[in-house]
C-alpha cells in the first residue's frame, strides 16, 4: 500500500503523543467530574457517583483492552506497519484503568481492607475472574519497556504477552457476569467485539497452516 506523506509524518512525529493524550483523556475527564462533585456541583455521574465511577473505569479498561487487541488486525489489513508502535502504550493504559478500577473498589467500597477484598475474590466468581485478569496484566505491564524486550528476547517476550488472550476473556466474562438482566447490552457488545478480534486470529492461524505446505511445494 502506498502511504501518503501525511501518514508518514503523522506516524513519525504525531502518532505517539496523540495516542498518549487520547489514552489519558478519560482519566482527566473523571478527575474533572470528581472535582466538580466534591464542590457540590451536579455531574453526569448522577446520584450514585461511586457506582458510576466503578463502571466508568471498568468499561474504559475493557474498551482500551479491546483497542489493544485490534491493533494487529488493523496493521495486517491496512498494511500500515507503524501502528504497531503504539500497541504497548495502549495495553499499558488498559492496565492503568483496570488498576484504578480495582483501587476504587478497594477504597470506596471495601474501606481499603485487603481482607474484605480477598473475601470477595474467594466468594464471588465475577470478582475472581476480574482479579485474575488484572493479575495477569502485571507481567505484561512490567515487561512493556524496550529494555525488557531486548533482555528477554523476542520469542520469550511474545510468549509472555500471549497472556493477553486469556486475560481479555476473563475480563469480558467478569463484565458479562455483572449484568442484572441480558437487556443491559454493553457487556454483550464487548463480548461480541472480543469474539471477532480473537476469531480473526484463529482464522489467520488456520489459513497460515493451510498455506505453508503449498509454499514449500512451490
Amino acid at each position, binding site marked *: 500500500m502506498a502511504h501518503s506523506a501525511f501518514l508518514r509524518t503523522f506516524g513519525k512525529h504525531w502518532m505517539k503523543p496523540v495516542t498518549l493524550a487520547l489514552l489519558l483523556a478519560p482519566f482527566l475527564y473523571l478527575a474533572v467530574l470528581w472535582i466538580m462533585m*466534591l464542590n457540590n*456541583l*451536579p455531574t453526569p455521574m*448522577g446520584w450514585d457517583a461511586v457506582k458510576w465511577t466503578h463502571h466508568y473505569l471498568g468499561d474504559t479498561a475493557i474498551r482500551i483492552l479491546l483497542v489493544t487487541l485490534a491493533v494487529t488486525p488493523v496493521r495486517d489489513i491496512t498494511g500500515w506497519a507503524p501502528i504497531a508502535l503504539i500497541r504497548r502504550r495502549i495495553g499499558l493504559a488498559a492496565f492503568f484503568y483496570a488498576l484504578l478500577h480495582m483501587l476504587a473498589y478497594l477504597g470506596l467500597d471495601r474501606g481499603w481492607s485487603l481482607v474484605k477484598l480477598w473475601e470477595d475474590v474467594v*466468594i464471588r466468581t465475577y470478582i475472581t475472574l476480574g482479579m485474575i485478569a488484572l493479575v495477569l496484566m502485571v507481567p505484561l505491564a512490567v515487561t512493556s519497556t524496550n529494555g525488557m524486550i531486548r533482555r528477554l528476547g523476542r520469542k520469550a517476550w511474545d510468549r509472555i504477552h500471549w497472556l493477553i488472550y486469556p486475560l481479555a476473556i476473563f475480563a469480558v466474562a467478569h463484565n458479562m457476569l455483572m449484568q442484572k*438482566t441480558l437487556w*443491559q447490552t454493553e457487556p454483550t457488545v464487548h463480548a461480541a467485539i472480543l469474539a471477532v478480534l480473537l476469531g480473526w486470529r484463529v482464522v489467520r492461524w488456520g489459513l497460515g497452516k493451510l498455506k505453508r505446505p503449498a509454499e514449500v511445494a512451490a
Partner: protein
Amino acid sequence: MELKFRRNTDYQDLSTEITPEKIFIDRRKLMAAGGMLGAGSILGALPACSEPQGAINAPAGASDHPKPGAKLVAAKSAFAVAEGPTVEDAFAGYCNYYEFGTDKSDPARNAFLMTTSPWQVKVEGETDAPGNYAITDLVDYKKLEERVYRHRCVEAWSMVIPWIGVPLNSVIAKLKPKATAKYIQFETYHNVKEMIGARAPVLKWPYTEGLRMDEAMNDLTLMAVGAYGKALQKQNGAPLRTVIPWKYGFKATKSIVKIRFVTAEPKTAWKTSNGNEYGFYSNVNPKVDHPRWSQASERVIGGKGGFNERRNTDMFNGYEKQVAAMYAGMDLAKNY
C-alpha cells in the same frame, strides 16, 4: 350515565391496534378534557381505552384522587430516621422502575406518558369483597400520615424517604379477606403504549409482588399515595404503591392495579426471573449476601454532588424490633 372501565388486563393483546403517538397523545388530551367535563360520550367513543364490563363498584371515572405532585395534608408520625430525608431531587431522579427503562434516570424521563387518572384497583381471590375500587375507596385521605422510613435497595444503596400513606392493614380491613387468604399479591399497571421499558421482556410483566398476610398486616407496611408532602410522582409509583421498610425495595409494588388474596406463595417478578439471587422474603439482612455483592453496607444516595457515603446496613433495615418476631425460628439465609 354510569361509566365503566376495563384497564390493564388486555393491553398485551392489542398490539395490532397501537395508535400513532400523535393521535395517542391527542386522545389523552381529549380524555383529560372529557374527564373534566364529565363528557361520557367522548370516552365512550374510544374503544381501546374504555369498554363496558360486568359488576364493578367503583364510582364513575374513579379519578377523584389527587394528581401527581398535588399537595397532601398528612399527620406527622413517630417514624423518623436520624439523618432526616434524602434530598428530594435524588428521590425523584434516581429510580428503579423497569417499565420505564432499566437506567435509574429513565423513569423520571419516560413516566410522563402514564395515565394515573382515572384509576381503579381490581380486588379478587380469597375475599368477601371482590370488585373494582377507586383509590379513595381504599385509602382514607383524612387519615394520611407521614412516615420517614429508610429505603434499602437490594443493589446496596439507600435513601431516607418521608412517605405519605395509610397502614396497609387499614386497606386490607376494607377488603374482607377470607381466612383461607395466606398471602397477598400485588400487580403493577402494565401498558406498553405508556411504558416504553415494558416493551422489552426484561421481567415477566405485569410486575408482580407479594407478602405473607402477617407481613402485610404489620403496622410498618404502608399503602403510600405520596412522599415529600405531595401525591406520588409517576416515576415513584403513582398513584399508589406499597412500602415495606424492612425489605429490599423491589418487594414494594408501584402503581398498583390489582390486589389478589391467595392461598399459596405468589410467583413474584424477581424470584421468577432469577430465583438464585432474589428470594420471596428479601428481608434486609447484612449477614446474608447477595451472590454477587455484600449486603453488609450500603451506599447512601443523595450526598454532596452525588458522592456516596457508606453506612453499615442494619438488620431488618433498622426495624428489627417491629418485625423480627414474624421470622422467629426461620433460617434467614435459606429463606433469603
